[in-house]
């Protein structure tokens, strides 16, 4: 009886200590949900070594127990035991060194990782003998359909930026928009400034409408597809220009047209003056051409006066 009481007190103490331990070692602002590790679903991903620089993509939405399995058929002379270990984002994971046995003509490394929050996402690599490596990029679905060229709009006009998550990828829970401010991102709350910003969310698509643009609105905008684990970001550049930009080439073209028309009409006038000396036939034409200021509009009115 006393033994069982001691066991109970010991377990309670252990629980308290481990609880405190949890609280002090996770200082991030959004602490991961304190779910017991065992209740997470298990996701198994396998990969067999094919060649150098092999990268496997793992798309996750929700917290899972991710089991990664690497297999390798080995060299010509297969040794019975080799070492293998795991890396995360290039850094060796502690205590991950294992000795791998040769089974069924291949070596197999497997490890379970708890992917519960954003920090757990990254590049996991399994390494055999420090030479054979398979990378697993564990991330939330990336936004594929996004405009790589800048969106050009005008001052005073309204601009539209869209982000779309492809049909082949899972839908995000919601969308968020950010504006780049130096190196930081500031979230855009449409509700706070309804005249300026409007966010239209459709499960797979999101649109940011910016009204009454000013030059200050130029810059990078980020759309975030929010999943439970993390937010997937895509960025689009918005360029705001004034009407003077296209006006410059436009005026150049109008000037060119004007010059051409003037030149053509002048040339014709000089030709008909030359022919004037040859015969009377041209006299009618010259009379009507002389009042013509060599502008297309006025030239047309002088033509209209001439009734043959």
């Amino acid at each position, binding site marked *: 009886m006393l033994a069982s009481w001691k066991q109970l007190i010991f377990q309670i103490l252990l629980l308290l200590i481990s609880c405190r331990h949890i609280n002090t070692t996770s200082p991030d602002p959004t602490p991961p949900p304190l779910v017991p590790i065992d209740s997470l679903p298990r996701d198994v991903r396998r990969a067999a070594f094919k060649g150098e620089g092999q990268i496997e993509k793992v798309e996750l939405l929700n917290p899972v127990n991710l089991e990664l399995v690497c297999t390798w058929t080995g060299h010509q002379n297969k040794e019975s035991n080799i070492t293998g270990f795991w890396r995360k984002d290039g850094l060796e994971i502690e205590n991950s060194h294992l000795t791998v046995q040769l089974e069924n003509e291949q070596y197999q490394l497997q490890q379970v990782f708890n992917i519960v929050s954003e920090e757990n996402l990254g590049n996991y690599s399994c390494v055999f003998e420090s030479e054979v490596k398979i990378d697993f990029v564990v991330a939330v679905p990336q936004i594929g359909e996004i405009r790589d060229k800048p969106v*050009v709009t005008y001052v005073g006009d309204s601009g539209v930026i869209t982000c779309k998550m492809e049909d082949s990828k899972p839908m995000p829970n919601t969308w968020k928009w950010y504006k780049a401010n130096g190196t930081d991102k500031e979230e855009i709350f449409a509700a706070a400034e309804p005249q300026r910003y409007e966010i239209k969310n459709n499960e797979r698509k999101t649109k940011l409408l910016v009204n009454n643009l000013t030059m200050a609105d130029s810059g990078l905008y980020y759309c975030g597809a929010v999943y439970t684990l993390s937010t997937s970001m895509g960025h689009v550049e918005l360029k705001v*220009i004034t009407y003077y930009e296209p006006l410059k080439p436009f005026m150049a073209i109008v000037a060119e047209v004007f010059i051409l028309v003037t030149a*053509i009409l002048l040339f014709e006038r000089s030709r008909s003056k030359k022919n004037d000396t040859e015969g009377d*036939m041209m006299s009618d034409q010259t009379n009507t051409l002389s009042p013509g200021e060599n502008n*297309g509009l006025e030239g047309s009115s002088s*033509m209209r006066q001439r*009734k*043959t």
Partner: protein
Amino acid sequence: MEERHTCTDKSVLDMTNPKPKAESQSDEAEDPDGGWGWVLVGALFVSTSLVFGLMRSLGIFFVEFVQYFDESAHAISWISSTGLAAQQFFSPLGAALCNAYNARVVVMTGGLLAGLGLILASQATRLYHLYLTMGVISGLGWGLVFTPMVATVMAHFTRRRTLALGLAFSSIGLSSFAFNPLFQLLVEKYAWRGALLILGGLSLNIVPCGALIRPRRRSKAPAKVDSETGSSPVSVLRRISSYLELSLLSERPYVTYTLGITLLNVGYFVPYFHLVAHSRHAGFSEYQSAFVMSAAGASDILGRIVSGWFSDLGHFRLIHLLSAWTTLAGVFIMLLPLSSLSGSYSALMVISLLYGFCSGALTSVVFVVVPLIVGVERMMGALGLLQLIESGAGLLGTPLSGFLKDVTGNYVASFIVAGSFLILGTLTMATLPHYFSCTDPPPPPQRSSLDDKHNGLHSELEHMTSSPSSDTNHRV
């Protein structure tokens, strides 16, 4: 009957020699086949590219419009449909104004309107603004430009008409090759608003093209004005109908020809709209399908120029050449789905190239046959009416082919029906009078009433330019 065997007798060419000398005595008359005519071909080249080449490349803007205005692609596609319809609808108006006034004025005004439409479109805030500006205003401008310029160029040539038109119309294909990347660049740099503004400026280049048209003393205008004095409604209406050449609608040859061309138009545009989709349907990749279309476009350009050059060599009558090209184009359109059924990409490519060549070849000849039927004098109005009437066919053809595709599930039926419309057009044209003879028929009698010495000289020269003995026999 013996004429058939001597169809290629070229001795009659000698008769054409005195003509240029006589005409050069009068500075007023056009120099046939040379000098200023080629300058006008250049002007037609530029203006056609700014009208049709531009229209064909507007697709780049549609993606932007869909995003900006939040409308369906179908609603946006109505912009170019409206533009094309307006261009064809206002063609008789352009022709009538040229008859009443002066081709130069009309074309310059048309250029201004076309540019203005696009400039106003750059300020659009609603979709219907685009219909009104890019569709109606620019379409009106284009209508005032195209038919008058084509008729003017044709009036400046007799023996090289088809080549002149072929060279000028090759601009459509060439400019759509150039405009697609250019428009893409403009949209990326200035967004659609700035790009439309710059396009409006570019369209204003039609104005100098119109300025190149030398104003001529037209023997027609005084004839009409003199005979119809007074401004009573009846005489005004009569004048308007003579400017519009409405009397042509009662003449069998013209109506037959117009009907033939209308039938041709029903099927003509189908491959443009459906070839890419059909290639994808047949299992080829996006890149391969687009390449088929580009290849057809390139052979189209080649076909226009080669057909123009060949027709003017004079070995065959123009109407026979037109029938040949139309029939061939119809046959190749029908072969298109059958070639891809076998799954062979090279077969599809070859047939598409041949189709492109033939469809380009026939466009060079279509307009040149008109003065042979109605005479050079009435050519302007005839072309205007032709454009208007054939526009209905274009509107019918594409929805019909789409409907057939929806009903049958693939494009085989659409293409076969389209090809058969072209062959129907040829058969209709075969009912033209004098179709089966080796020589061109005499043109209809000239209009009367030219008392003035100069006008008399002019009409005599015009008669010489269009009479069968001097210019058409050698084409026989």
